Every structure is written in C-alpha cells, then in structure tokens.
C-alpha cells in the first residue's frame, strides 16, 4: 500500500515537473521518468506486459523522439522563451483542483466501483492478443501504416527541378 501510494505521488510530481520545467529537455526527461513510474505502477498492479511495453516504447522510443525534436528547436526556444507566469501558477491550480475534487470525486469513484462486473480473469496475454482481439492487431498495423503515410506526406520528396536551389520548403 505504501509503495503503491508512493509511486502515484511520484507520478504526480514528475507530471508537475514535466509541465513546469523551464527547459524543454528537462520536460522530456521528466516525461520519461513519468513513464518509468507508470510502468512500475503497472508491475505493481500485476500487469507485467503493460509495464514492459510502457517501459520500452513510452520511456524509450517516445523519449528519444522528444529529445531529438527538442534538440532541433532548443536554440530558438531559448532565444524566445514563453511567459512562465502561467506555469508557475500550476501548483496553485492543481492544489485548488485537488481540494475541490476531494469532496466529490472519491465518493463518485466508490460508487463507480460498486457497479463493477467481475471478469473471468482467465487466459493469457497471447490468447487475448492473437485469438480474441484480432481486430485490434489489424487496427495497430493500420495505425502504423497511417503514421508512416502522415510523415511521408509532411515531408514530401522534392521535385527534381527544385533540387539544389537551396529553397527549403
């Protein structure tokens, strides 16, 4: 219970830090640490496959993507920084939300938990993925294809005539 609560508290801290950090690189690193904390929560809740995917894909791949993009725009971001006042107000806004929500959200979630329908709990992840959720797998393949198509259309191949002109469109 203590370990579980500590992980959730850490997740809130890393989320706050990721939003409030002045440097974008710090934000990206805090987001990676948030992913690591979330994966530890998954392991703690008894969901090891979700934890492994979260750790490898979200804490690994997405962090690399973010750090790569941030390193590209870092100099521009530092030369024209955003106003920090709204970000410094975040802890106050979060505290107001936490206090206001404390009076009705936990009671609502208690009621929600009362409506639960227990599952069978059987099977394994391989059976669920390959036999029972095949449309999901097809959807994943289509999503990956859509992502490749988006990136291909955002960065089209330059026409032959405009090559070497130095025009960067």
């Amino acid at each position, binding site marked *: 219970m203590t370990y579980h609560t500590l992980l*959730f*508290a850490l*997740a809130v801290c890393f*989320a*706050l830090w*990721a*939003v409030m950090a002045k440097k*974008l690189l710090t*934000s*990206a690193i805090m*987001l990676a640490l*948030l992913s690591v904390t*979330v994966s530890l*929560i998954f392991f703690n*809740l008894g*969901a090891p*496959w979700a934890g492994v*995917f*979260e750790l490898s*894909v979200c804490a690994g791949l*997405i962090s690399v*993507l*973010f750090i*790569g*993009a941030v390193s*590209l*725009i870092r100099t*521009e*971001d530092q030369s*024209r920084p*955003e106003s920090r006042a709204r*970000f410094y107000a975040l802890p106050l*806004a*979060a505290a107001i*939300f*936490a206090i206001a929500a*404390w009076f009705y959200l*936990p009671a609502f*979630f*208690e009621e929600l*938990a009362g409506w639960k329908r*227990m599952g*069978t*709990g*059987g*099977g394994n*992840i391989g059976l669920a*993925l390959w036999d*029972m*959720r095949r449309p999901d797998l097809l*959807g*994943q393949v289509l*999503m*990956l294809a859509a*992502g490749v198509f*988006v*990136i291909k259309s*955002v*960065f089209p191949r330059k026409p032959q005539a405009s090559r070497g002109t130095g025009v960067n*469109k």
Partner: protein
Amino acid sequence: MSTFAIDWYIIALIMFIGFYSMLASRSIVRQLIGLEIISKAAMLALISAGALTDNLVYAQALLITMIVIEVVVVAAGLALLVKNFRVNGNADVWNLDSLKG
C-alpha cells in the same frame, strides 16, 4: 475509502495537469507533453479498472493497442513540429495553419 477510489482521484489530478499544460502553452512540444500526460492518466485508469474487475488480460491487450496509437500520434505531431520549425522558424501551435496547401 478503497484504494481504487484514491487511485482514480490521483489519476484525475494527473489528467488535470496534462490539460493545464495543453491550455497554458502555445509550444507544440509542450502541447504534446500535455497530451502524453493525459494519455498516461488514461492508461493508469485502464489498468486500474482491469485490476479491480480481475480483467487484467484484456486491459493489457487494449493498452498495447493504445501505446501503438500513442506512438503514431506523437511521431506525427513531432513531424508537424519539425515542418513548422522549417517553414516558420518557431514551434508556435497557432502557426500550424500556415502549413496548409
């Protein structure tokens, strides 16, 4: 009070932080970071509900799909960021409409 209710209360707080980041900033990177935080909160809610109802196998299968979608969304968002930076020289989300056509 049950652990489930407390977990979901904290998840709501994490989601609020993500929404705040998306509302307060004009930088595409910070918008995507806010989106990621909201996505983490949704994942926690999914697995927590799976653990509550003893349905973790299906929750994990659904979460793997969600992670794939998240990766594609982030990759597409960062591609738009790079394109916007090349065209406009900044990462302002309000300049994205200059990419059309």
